[in-house]
């Protein structure tokens, strides 16, 4: 499953690209990959005057902010899948 997203790392510059939910982790079109097992925290952030975003916090404290560019419900669908994959990786 792939999603069109806008990413930013540790509140840095944003860039648009593809996010793919691979078997072992999240793969980004820019070349990065975050294993599910390395995620310390995952939650949906809501900001005033902003779009909701999925926040991934790695076990070394790096913070990745993901906004979906696709339609209704895509972010929440992505969030649900990441929650599930992370849960499976932990067992």
């Amino acid at each position, binding site marked *: 499953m*792939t999603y*069109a997203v806008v990413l930013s790392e540790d509140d840095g510059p*944003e860039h648009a*690209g*593809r996010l793919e939910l691979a078997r072992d982790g999240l793969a980004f*079109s820019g070349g990065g990959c975050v294993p599910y097992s390395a995620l310390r925290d995952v939650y949906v952030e809501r900001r*005033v005057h902003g779009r909701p975003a999925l926040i991934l916090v790695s076990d070394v404290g790096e913070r990745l902010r993901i906004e979906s560019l696709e*339609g*209704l419900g895509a972010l929440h669908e992505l969030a649900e899948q990441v929650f599930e994959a992370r849960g499976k990786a932990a067992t």
Partner: protein
Amino acid sequence: MERALADSRLRALVDAGMALTAELSLDAVLQRLVETAAELTGARYAALGVIDAAGGRLERFLTHGVEPEVEAAIGERPLGRGILGVLVRDATPLRLHDLAEDPRSVGFPPGHPAMRTFLGVPIVLRGIAYGNLYLTEKEGGADFGEDDEEIVILLAAQAAIAIENARLYEASTQWSRRLESLNDVGNAIATETDVPALLDLVARRLLELLGARLVLVLLPHGDRLRVAAAAGAGAGGLAGTSVERAASKSGRVLETGRSERVDALRDDPEVDQETVRRFGARSGLWVPLQVRGRVIGVIAAHDKASVDDARFSDDDLRLAETFAQRAAIAVDLSERVARDSLRRVVAAQELERRRLARELHDETGQALTSILLGLRALEERVDGDDERDAVASIRHLAVDTLQNVRRLAVELRPKALDDFGLVAALERLTETFRDQTRIDVDFVASLTGEQLPGEVATALYRIVQEALTNVVKHASASGVSILLTRKNGAVALVIEDDGVGFDAARPADGFGLQGMRERVELLGGALRVETREGAGTTVAVEVPLAS
């Protein structure tokens, strides 16, 4: 004594003629003819050569008097050279004292029984030489005489009638069987509405009717023809493959709407030899699937299984054309049913989205606005800082929620699309896209203020949405240009990016192109994708507008 012999031979001739005309099987007529000729003349050996359609060679050769093991040892049947060929060319009776002495003789192959005396008589069917009777080695070593020649000429005349009867009977029986099959097929086709299942049925039934080795049903797919169904040898590996329209016989038939038949594919320069190798075919026939003057596909059949040279006949071509006419109607009907169903589904989806958007905006949005107003009033009335902060926090949440609800409503169904039209909606969409992604979008529209029909505007809007999503997901592009124009009674939309492109030959299901194409085709339009790895992608759509 001589008179008694002559009477006896005449009686035998009459009996033979009656027996011949009573036979309805062509093979039986021919075999009986050879045996009767030998009997009437006292020839030890008799043969009948049937001349081929071109009139130059013998295509069949039946014998009487030669033992099967001797025939097997001789091997190849004569083709009509030497003395046999003289009759093929001249079609006049010939009597010889000694075959070997005639300068036109080419001799006998090894193992052939010795033959000296000879009588040959043509069989003429409605003025055309059908074949020849050859008689050799008259009993007692005598030469064949004039009376032998006369009696065989009379026999040949009777045989011509019998052969004509048998051929007509066989042809009518065959057509009767084929008509029955066509009726069965027509009924089966008429009851099948699922298009892929229908195409499979078409391929299988035509394979049976023609006795072909392979049948393919090809449908247009962009600039190629896709094998939508296949039946016969190697069919499993061919379904889903495609051939180029421009370089194939199928493409030519699609273009011209005229059937074609090729007896030897290797020798035809218009046939793509790579495709011939892939299909393993020797011969072929192609018939268009045509409905109301429009060619919607092509049926190709290869290699008639029951003949040595695998060639199809004129009858086979006519049969395939008749079958294709019925199949085309059924395919067109099923496709229209499927398109209508899909159109209704899409229309229902858009209607639901519009209603949900309205509900969100008018009900949920209004409710939240009321909550906000109430919270503002409350904030002004509470005394404590903590209480005021709590109320402010709830108000901010309400503001955020209201904005989300409005955004959701736009994503479901942009109001601009219904209120101001496609251009305004796309201007808004591309602006939002630019802000969110930092990808440069250049949108140019030259529709000069006209409003497009609702379903056309919706389809084009959704296509641009999908295309922009693809740009983010796959293109790694820095810029996109979108052009919306009027063009010859149609609206044209071109979306071009400067990204990495992709291999057009690779299936691109993840790009939503199939969905885009279906939306466009529902409206009678066409979608074309041009792309090359490293050279960006262009999606071009054209949708006709009712005048």
